[in-house]
């Protein structure tokens, strides 16, 4: 038993923290939020240069070949920002999906670009009947010459506006298979529209007869003699299951950051002649917060450890997402109670997390979704 990070992981953690502090100071984050950009060229190109975007990609495909726990450390630190951009979508979800669903040729051609940040990916799964199940995929891939013509509307797609390519879950025209197509974001017939409001980097992706070739189908799991789309959904589910703990780590990082902000504020804000943290009610907000934080932290890192050691991890993954989604959401609420009015001002920075926590609460399945899956995994 050893619940500490390795020396290398501690070094990675420190390096990422320095990077985030330097390249994504609060002013930058506020400006990105105000302009609605989440992957401007400047800090993003520096992030790409670090090689971290290839952290889960094997070295043979140009990545770093890190462990899941290594990647957890990276995403936790990015979550402290919260650093926007398609790092989770591309470097975790996208890379893992290509690894699971791609052919050897696709892996060789795509993954080095993903690792280098030249290509950024967003996963378009959900549609109008918003749910995360295979049966909810209604976008259609119709045969068209040598390739396919894809039509449908994907909604609430995370990071779509910042991606060079969209991996779309699509159904074959005969409705028998749900598979994956890799579509350039600038392909004719693709239109991407940001969804405004309290949503964080969500977009609608319209596919209006988008033409793709055979090679754009991620067909590494296709059954011989069957549609190249066959096996795609299963591969996606497996990729998502391994990416979820990395999303959780990002939520842990966000929770850690609002915890530290709250403790600091409890020391420096004076009311009634004393630091507000001397009042038990204020203390209790922070205690509730740290309990949520630590619950998320340990369920998440145990799931990562199970993935790294190739243990059966389904229960831990569903547990981690259930706990971490609620933890980040509630952590922000508790932080708002500590900060009261000041926390509601945009300039203070807390609302960046509040906004992120809401979108991530439901992304890849909200607590009630993962609770049901957890019950199944436990054999109930």
């Amino acid at each position, binding site marked *: 038993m050893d619940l500490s990070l390795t020396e290398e992981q501690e070094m990675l953690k420190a390096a990422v923290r320095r990077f985030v502090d330097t390249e994504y100071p609060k002013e930058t984050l506020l400006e990105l939020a105000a302009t609605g950009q989440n992957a401007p060229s400047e800090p993003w190109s520096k992030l790409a240069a670090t090689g971290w975007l290839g952290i889960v990609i094997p070295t043979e495909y140009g990545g770093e070949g890190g462990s899941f726990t290594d990647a957890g450390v990276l995403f936790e630190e990015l979550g402290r920002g919260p650093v926007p951009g398609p790092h989770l979508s591309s470097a975790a979800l996208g890379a893992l999906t290509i690894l699971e669903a791609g052919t050897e040729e696709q892996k060789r051609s795509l993954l080095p670009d993903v690792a280098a940040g030249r290509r950024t990916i967003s996963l378009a799964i959900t549609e109008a*009947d*918003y*749910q995360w199940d295979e*049966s*909810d995929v209604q976008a259609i891939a119709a045969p068209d010459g040598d390739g396919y013509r894809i039509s449908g509307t994907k*909604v*609430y797609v995370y990071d779509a506006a910042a991606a060079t390519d969209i991996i779309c879950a699509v159904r074959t025209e005969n409705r028998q298979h749900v598979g994956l197509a890799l579509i350039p974001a600038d392909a004719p017939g693709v239109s991407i529209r940001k*969804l*405004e*409001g*309290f*949503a*964080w980097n*969500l977009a*609608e992706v319209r596919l209006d007869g988008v033409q793709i070739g055979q090679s754009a189908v991620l067909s590494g799991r296709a059954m011989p003699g069957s549609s190249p789309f066959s096996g795609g959904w299963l591969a996606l589910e497996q990729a998502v299951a391994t990416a979820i703990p990395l999303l959780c780590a990002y939520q842990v990082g966000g929770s850690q950051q609002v915890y530290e902000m709250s403790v600091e504020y409890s020391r420096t804000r*004076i*009311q*009634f002649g004393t630091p*507000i943290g001397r*009042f038990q*009610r*204020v203390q209790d907000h922070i205690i509730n917060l740290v309990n949520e934080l630590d619950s998320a932290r340990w369920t998440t890192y145990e799931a990562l450890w199970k993935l790294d050691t190739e243990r059966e991890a389904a229960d831990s993954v569903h547990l981690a997402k259930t706990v971490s989604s609620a933890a980040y*959401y509630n952590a*922000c*609420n508790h932080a*708002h*109670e500590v900060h*009261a*009015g*000041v926390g*509601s*001002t*945009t*300039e203070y920075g807390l*609302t960046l997390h*509040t*906004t992120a926590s*809401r*979108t991530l*609460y*439901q992304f890849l399945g*909200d*607590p*009630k979704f993962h609770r049901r899956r957890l019950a199944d995994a436990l054999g109930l």
Partner: protein
Amino acid sequence: MDFEPRYTAEQEAFRTEVQEWLHENIPAGIEHPADSIDLTYEQYQLRRDLGRRLGEKGWLWPTAPEEYGGGGLTVDHSVVLEEEIDGYNLSLPPYYDSGGRLGGNSILVWGSEEQKQEFLPKIFKGEIRTWQLLTEPEAGSDLANAKTSARRDGDDYVINGQKVYVGSAHGSDYMWTITCTDPEGDRHHNLSWFMVPSDLPGISVFPMDLLSSAGESGAGSGVKNIVYFDNVRVPARNLIGGENEGWKVATTHLELEHGTGGKIGRNWIVDRIFEYCKTNNRRGEPLSKDVDVRERLIDIYIDAEIGRLFQLRNYWMRHSGAHITYEGPQASYFRKQSGLRIATGILDILGPAALTKDSQWGAGEGHIEAHQRAAIIALHPGGTTDIQKVIMSRRIGIGRQQRERAGALA
């Protein structure tokens, strides 16, 4: 017990009169936007105009004393008025105005006869609109720490300082504000209230950039502002309650702000989510038939019903002269906490459709998205949840033999 206003024949006749009048006098285009920050100047002017016409009839502040320009009507009349205007998604007054409920009541209790004659008719007839200015950067929960100074100089006071989180958009006629008139004085004995004409030289107003202005329903407070006072000269006759007697006035003001007034009316966001779930399908079935959705709707319903009953109880206590202790802050605390639970329930039901105001993909024409933000920010104004619990504890007498009394109300 009787949980419903007794609708006498006279009341029902009054209702018909009100219905007809509202039907004729409520103009198109007055509708509340999803986020009160989006209320246009034109909409605001429509509402002010409606307010003036209500004021002329004595229906703007129906139970306020007739001698000071109020309606002089009974509670039963005011219930009818509130119910009917609620049907238009409006409230009394139909715009943010802390003048009547908070400032007006405080002047009724603490003002001189001359001040009542001067200010109250303008307030109760809707001629003026008043903002309240309480919070300062260093005086949030600790309001008694207000540092905005008012220094006597001849027949005037000279005010300097800064107030924050001041509602709302489109200007005010008066500012109802608490100041420090004796920086060296004892706590709670060094404060004074003023009704400050908003057009005095030296006052400047800047909007704040907030996650939400917590305008949940009805009038909504719209944008919030920072107000600076730079050597603003206010006539001494605008001092309410006496120099250094401001904390007394504050107890009245805060009593009402902390929820003692109660309220009759629907919880609009709850109505909206129930309606949405009954009329929108997922996978071919109404959302309200989904087992998880039903669980959340029941959670929401229970919170809404308890909140309604607490507000109804307070409304009745306030108007029947019952002995009020902890009930005001209890209702306020419950409304704040349950509001956030309700928001979480809605997010669970709708997922990301609750987070966007996109006209196609957002639920409830932006109202749901605005509520998701507002429910967080609503935890703080009018006393944080922690402050509500501080007051409840004193009023219940937890750990103390003497129970603190509620602030005096008119």
